[in-house]
């Protein structure tokens, strides 16, 4: 047996076929996994249902927070009072965990309207409006505190409440899911 194996040093046609077959099977197998993984991503109907939505701002009184949904995600539309805007603007940005000016979180000329995602950036609970130390939001799950600009001011949340893409269609109407520049 030792004599026969020592003689085989050169790669043979059989070796080539063996490796080529194995490689083809591996590539084919990997290619077959792809559609199965893709089937788990958001389907066409879900994507279609995720089209931009319009929100009429005219019935929302100053101081009121309205909950709307876009792509199954909760969004707070907050009509801020002058005091709330001032409180948000007077903060020393350098002291914040996720430093952002209030001006960068609203559209120019529309400082009274704050549009933020309504799920806490910690683990996704819905924070309660007009509560907490800064009268912005307070999350009852794990105690995160947000100010009137939706910026995190305490608790375990790592970042501010994110701003969804939106634009003003008119002074009293916004389109959530679509930026003005588009």
């Amino acid at each position, binding site marked *: 047996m030792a004599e026969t194996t020592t003689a085989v040093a050169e790669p043979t046609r059989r070796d080539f076929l063996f490796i080529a077959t194995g490689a083809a099977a591996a590539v084919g197998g990997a290619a077959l996994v792809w559609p199965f*993984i893709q089937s*788990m*991503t*958001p*389907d066409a109907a*879900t994507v279609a249902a*995720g089209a931009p939505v319009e929100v009429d701002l005219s019935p929302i009184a100053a101081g009121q927070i309205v*909950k709307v*949904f876009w*792509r*199954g*995600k*909760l969004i707070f539309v907050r009509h801020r009072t002058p005091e709330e805007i001032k409180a948000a603007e007077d903060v020393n940005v350098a002291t914040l965990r996720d430093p952002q000016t209030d001006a960068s979180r609203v559209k120019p000329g529309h400082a009274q309207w704050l549009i933020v995602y*309504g*799920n806490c950036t*910690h*683990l*996704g*609970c*819905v924070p309660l409006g007009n509560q907490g130390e800064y009268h912005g939001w307070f999350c*009852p*799950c*794990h*105690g995160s505190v947000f100010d009137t600009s939706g910026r995190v001011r305490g608790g*375990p949340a*790592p970042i501010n409440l994110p701003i969804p893409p939106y634009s003003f269609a008119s002074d009293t109407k916004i389109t959530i899911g679509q930026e003005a520049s588009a």
Partner: protein
Amino acid sequence: MSQHSSTYVPKSAFAKWFESRLPIASLVHSSFIAYPVPRNINYFWTFGAILSFMLVSQILTGVFLAMYYTPHASLAFQSVEHIMRDVNFGWLIRYLHANGASMFFVAVYIHIFRGLYYGSYKAPREILWILGVIIYGLMMATAFMGYVLPWGQMSFWGATVITNILAAIPVVGDTIQSLLWGGYSVGNPTLNRFFSIHYLLPFMIVGVVILHVWALHVPGQNNPTGVPIKSSKDALPFTPYATIKDIFATAVFLIFFAWWVFYLPNYLGHADNYVPANPAVTPAHIVPEWYFLPFYAILRAIPDKLGGVIAMFASIAVLAFLPWLDTSKVRSTSYRPLYKQFFWILAADTLLLGWLGAKPPEGWYVIVSQIATAYYFIHFLIILPVLGFIERPLPLPNSILEAVTASKKGGSGIPAGANAEPNSKG
């Protein structure tokens, strides 16, 4: 050991014909009838059988529930109420399934702490132990997804919190989250795939359980002394000794199970889950099921989101490394005076974490959670490795027989027949 393994001899012509084609009868005979079990194993060794029973019970009740359950976001809650109110004995099958999950975890925690106390994870049982950790992980995934299916408030928000935890994983977190959601948030596609996977995982558990039992039957069972079987006098045949004991223990456990099902069927759940899922309102107090509470406390103890997630997964993963973290060669804690104290401190620490997991994350609860979390890891990563070097264990008995007869000296605790002829039934 081999002295016990009287071989299976097919008697009828059909049995001979079958045996030569599929030798399953001889496999059952050698694994569950003639198989030698240490004569000194106590009732903590019956939880393997109890867990097997619970797994079958969960699968059977689950199959019947699936005949009426509808995995759709707008119909799921109603279909569960339909099961509870209209389906004949639907309330019983659902309560058996929901409380069965809790009972499954009661049994698995006793089983795990049995292993920790008697050193059942040590050589040559490392693979057996790691397979057990894998089963535990699959059980947790199955239980979590099952809890989402009724689509109540706790279902929805539990799913939201847990999938947000996974999003904290660097690089692939968002992809994993999107694949779990099947949309832009927890919704109908999420419920659909959770149902599919909840139905799949128990059968994967069955597969790993078969490997677990196989890995158990190679070295054989550990026992309260940790001393291996050395002669036929140390062992008894599985049937009838272990079989009857397992059946009796399972029956007692079933009484405990039935007590929950018939007297406190909702005690272990949350009232909020009888409120339909509402993505606009979070329940005032999100708490996982009791069996996840220690890990939930660890998650919240770390003030950093990713850090908390890592600590939570690490607290389970560390168990897989236990065979190498414990440097002591002595298996049974009965002969380890120092470790015995640390074992009970760990048990108390785990219970404390469980209690803290149910408390709101504020004030001194957070600080105590952090101390208890730190101790949990110190136990496994520092105390266990060091203890093996500094501890002086008590003298081990020469054999299981010696340990049994020494402790029973003067009494007649051992059946005379079993003592003289342990394999007479074999």
